[in-house]
């Protein structure tokens, strides 16, 4: 099997240093909505200047390079075990090259391993075998600030009068945005999962963040809800960094997974504005990135 360590290292560098075009476009559009001279507008202008600078200098967009979360879709013939080793080698080398901050800390002692290699869950790698002959590796770098404000609700929620329907989903997601205030580095992006058990719902909410900001949900009802939640979240007035303003959420992506009759979870993965998400594709001898 081919050794992709250097190609995966490039994926990590690219993800950490170059914000995806769809995310940058959303940020540029949001600047125009904030009043000239406001703290909100100043924050967004600073953010965009930083984005240009890190792409030029190949340095991390944010010092919290987060949990590296890999989603690997491999055709028959590839070994997940060997791919995991290559991912680990690439992550350690990326840390040494300062594309990543050493972030893997023993839960109890607090000791930092120094190379971003912890146990089998750090870095996180999700594998699935797929048809066809293209290997894809997607990477999200998700920082601690936005991970800490991500959350899960079990419906019905009496405090929010949220029932087991899309109206209930809308209520709890807006509550999550309010709870987060500016702490998740607003303006943020929401990955929302409805259903599942607690664990699958958390994973699915992160998978929803693999979608492009400007795509449309094929389910018309969910597409409408995504748009409504984004619009209403922006009415909350939390704004960039929580300074107040019109740009609080720049995109909502909703997915659903099968659930037990007894359970109705809604999980909100809050992603900061530094929405670092990139993809690498391997077909025959060709490796490409987007």
């Amino acid at each position: 099997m081919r050794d992709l360590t250097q190609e995966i290292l490039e994926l990590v560098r690219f993800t950490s240093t170059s914000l995806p075009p769809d995310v940058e476009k959303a940020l540029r559009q949001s600047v125009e909505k904030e009043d000239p001279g406001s703290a909100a507008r100043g924050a967004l202008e600073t953010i965009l200047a930083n984005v240009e600078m890190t792409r030029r200098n190949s340095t991390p967009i944010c010092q919290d390079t987060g949990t590296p979360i890999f989603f690997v879709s491999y055709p028959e013939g590839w070994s997940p075990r060997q791919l995991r080793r290559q991912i680990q080698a690439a992550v350690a080398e990326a840390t040494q090259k300062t594309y990543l901050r050493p972030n893997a800390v023993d839960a109890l002692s607090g000791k930092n391993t120094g190379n971003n290699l912890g146990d089998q869950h750090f870095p996180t790698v999700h594998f699935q075998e797929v048809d066809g002959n293209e290997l894809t590796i997607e990477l999200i770098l998700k920082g601690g600030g936005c991970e800490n404000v991500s959350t899960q609700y079990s419906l019905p929620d009496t405090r929010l009068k949220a029932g087991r329907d899309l109206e209930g989903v809308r209520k709890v997601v807006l509550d999550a945005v309010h709870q987060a205030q500016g702490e998740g580095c607003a303006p943020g992006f929401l990955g929302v999962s409805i259903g599942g058990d607690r664990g699958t719902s958390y994973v699915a909410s992160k998978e929803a963040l693999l979608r492009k900001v400007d795509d449309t949900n094929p389910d018309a009802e969910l597409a409408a809800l995504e748009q409504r939640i984004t619009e209403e979240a922006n009415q909350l007035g939390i704004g960039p960094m929580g300074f107040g303003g019109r740009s609080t959420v720049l995109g909502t992506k909703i997915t659903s997974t099968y659930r037990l009759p007894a359970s109705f979870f809604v999980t909100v993965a809050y992603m900061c504005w530094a929405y670092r998400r990139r993809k690498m594709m391997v077909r025959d001898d060709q490796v490409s990135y987007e």
Partner: protein
Amino acid sequence: MPKNLTIPISDNAIRNLRVGDSVLLSGVMVTGRDAVHKWMADTFIKKTRQPSGDDLQVYQALRPVLDGGAIYHCGPVVAGLDTRQYRFVAAGPTTSIREEPYQGDVMHHFNLKAVIGKGGMGTRTLQACQEVPGVYLHAIGGAAALIAGAVQQVLGVYKLEFGVPEAIWVIKVADFPAVVTMDAQGNSLHEVVRQESKRILERLIA
């Protein structure tokens, strides 16, 4: 126009700051986040643990830097770890609210005038801002490269055994950009935004 602030910061300069003011901070400050605040509180303020190793030396070295000074909630990406020719590559703020249980006491103990981070802090820190007096300065979260550009020199590091993000980095900064979001008069932008957004939320989910 941003206001220039030089460390050490005088009480007078602090009292002249208001929520919403942009500032450019210059001088020597230290980074400190979760492990550092807990270490300061446990070892020197509440004294629930005995100093060990180089604790007392680090404490004596930090006191003059923090007196009238600033602490920055930041876990940087640092180059030059092998050669000890340290350079900040990325150095944006981390979420401050995690230090809420300690911050007010740390401000009082060290006569700390400025706390820099993101996301704002709670009532205990706001009260300490009025008493010390001090301010909370909000840096732009994620603007890591731009802020690293304001770090002219890494003067040294303490407690590197806490790990790179959690260590105490002593840095010389020039024109470090931030916004006052909690002032010495008891105003907090975060409290205002929280209350106002709560009112709107209640209407939206009614």
